[in-house]
């Protein structure tokens, strides 16, 4: 029992992002056939041993309860810091985020915030240097995301999770501010059917073609936006995706209000 207690982390400060993601998956899993299996899996995760490890083979339920009590801090909220300690990277200001970076972050976080937070870190945390006028220059976004993201799995969760909170605040404000640009045509199928019922002949055919084209556009919306901004010139792709996100959307908002 003492060997277990020695190995137990004492607080969230001792938990890396990778272990936090494992805890998150365990707590959200619906596959456990028994509650005791859930507790054993949780213990194995925080102890960083396999759930079939011989250390857990003969453990009594009383010992499990004692150990679970010792990690009751898991039920408490994280004490969030923003900057990983001893980190060679600095978080990029959200106001400087580019269109390409935003699209990539949206892609990763749309699958699962917690399980893909290391990709958010890989995109937002950069090496920095100062130019001749002491302005901060961020490392260009042309490194391997997969490789960079792995580095963040070993950082303490308390120093990582803050960026997710802050990013989501930025994102929600951004989407609210530019809401008219994100509102597409209403493709509710019932409304479309009602519309079809009022048309016939050539008008009906044209409406159906337009509806199908709009569905395809929605599917490819970010790509379609970039294609439009490139003026259908693929050589301009990098130029467009490296543009400041706020600048791009300010221009799009102006274009929409003038049209």
């Amino acid at each position: 029992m003492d060997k277990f207690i020695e190995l137990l982390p004492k607080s969230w400060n001792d938990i890396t992002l990778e272990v936090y993601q494992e805890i998150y998956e365990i707590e959200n899993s619906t596959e456990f056939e028994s509650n005791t299996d859930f507790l054993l899996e949780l213990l194995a995760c925080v102890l960083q041993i396999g759930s079939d490890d011989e250390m857990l083979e003969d453990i009594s339920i009383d010992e499990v309860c004692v150990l679970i009590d010792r990690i009751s801090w898991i039920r408490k909220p994280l004490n969030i810091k923003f900057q990983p300690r001893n980190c060679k990277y600095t978080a990029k200001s959200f106001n400087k985020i580019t269109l390409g970076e935003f699209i990539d972050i949206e892609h990763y976080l749309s699958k699962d915030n917690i399980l893909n937070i290391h990709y958010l870190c890989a995109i937002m945390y950069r090496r920095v240097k100062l130019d001749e006028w002491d302005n901060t220059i961020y490392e260009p976004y042309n490194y391997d995301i997969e490789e960079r993201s792995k580095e963040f799995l070993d950082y303490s969760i308390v120093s990582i999770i803050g960026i997710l909170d802050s990013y989501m605040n930025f994102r929600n404000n951004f989407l609210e501010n530019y809401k008219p640009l994100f509102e597409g045509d209403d493709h509710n199928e019932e409304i479309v059917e009602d519309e079809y019922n009022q048309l016939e002949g050539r008008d009906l055919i044209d409406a159906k073609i337009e509806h199908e084209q709009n569905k395809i556009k929605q599917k490819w919306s970010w790509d379609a936006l970039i294609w439009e901004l490139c003026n259908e010139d693929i050589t301009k792709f990098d130029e467009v995706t490296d543009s400041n996100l706020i600048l791009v959307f300010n221009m799009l908002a102006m274009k929409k209000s003038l049209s």
Partner: protein
Amino acid sequence: MIKINEFVFPTGINELTLEQFEGVSKIFNDTEKSEIDKYISIMELLGANETFINDLSDDNLFKFIKGFNTDDNLKKKKIKNFKIGDRQFVSHTDKEFVLKAKDLSMIEKLIKDGNNIFSKMIAVIFKEVGTLPKDTYDKDKVLEKVELFKDLNAGLYFPYIVYISEKINKKLTSING
């Protein structure tokens, strides 16, 4: 035992099998039955037929109710082993019985269907001597023991049932904080 007409009914946990004790517990926990109906159901569970029930007088019913007491002389000591035929079963070799987490996990999975709960508890914690480690938690082999243990005396194994139930409650308290 209590004799009413031609039927002899066990009374008290020490005279019930595990299967009977479980049936009695379920009946007592049935909130939709009246107290009288509960005791009639118990008599049916313990072997009374329809004719007996139809002819049952008030006096005999109350005689049964008065005599039936599942809490009488409850044993506290946990037995370590027992034999059925040539087969030997052991719960622990140390001085005190300690419920392993793996055992409780198996019990939880088996009792989900709500049937033979007590027999399943006993079947998990009493391992057959000579069983290979890989077969200890084999579901089919455990269920075979459940069938075998249904007729064991409930009183002898009641301390385990209480112990395991307490551990389940303690675990729930630990999780919920």
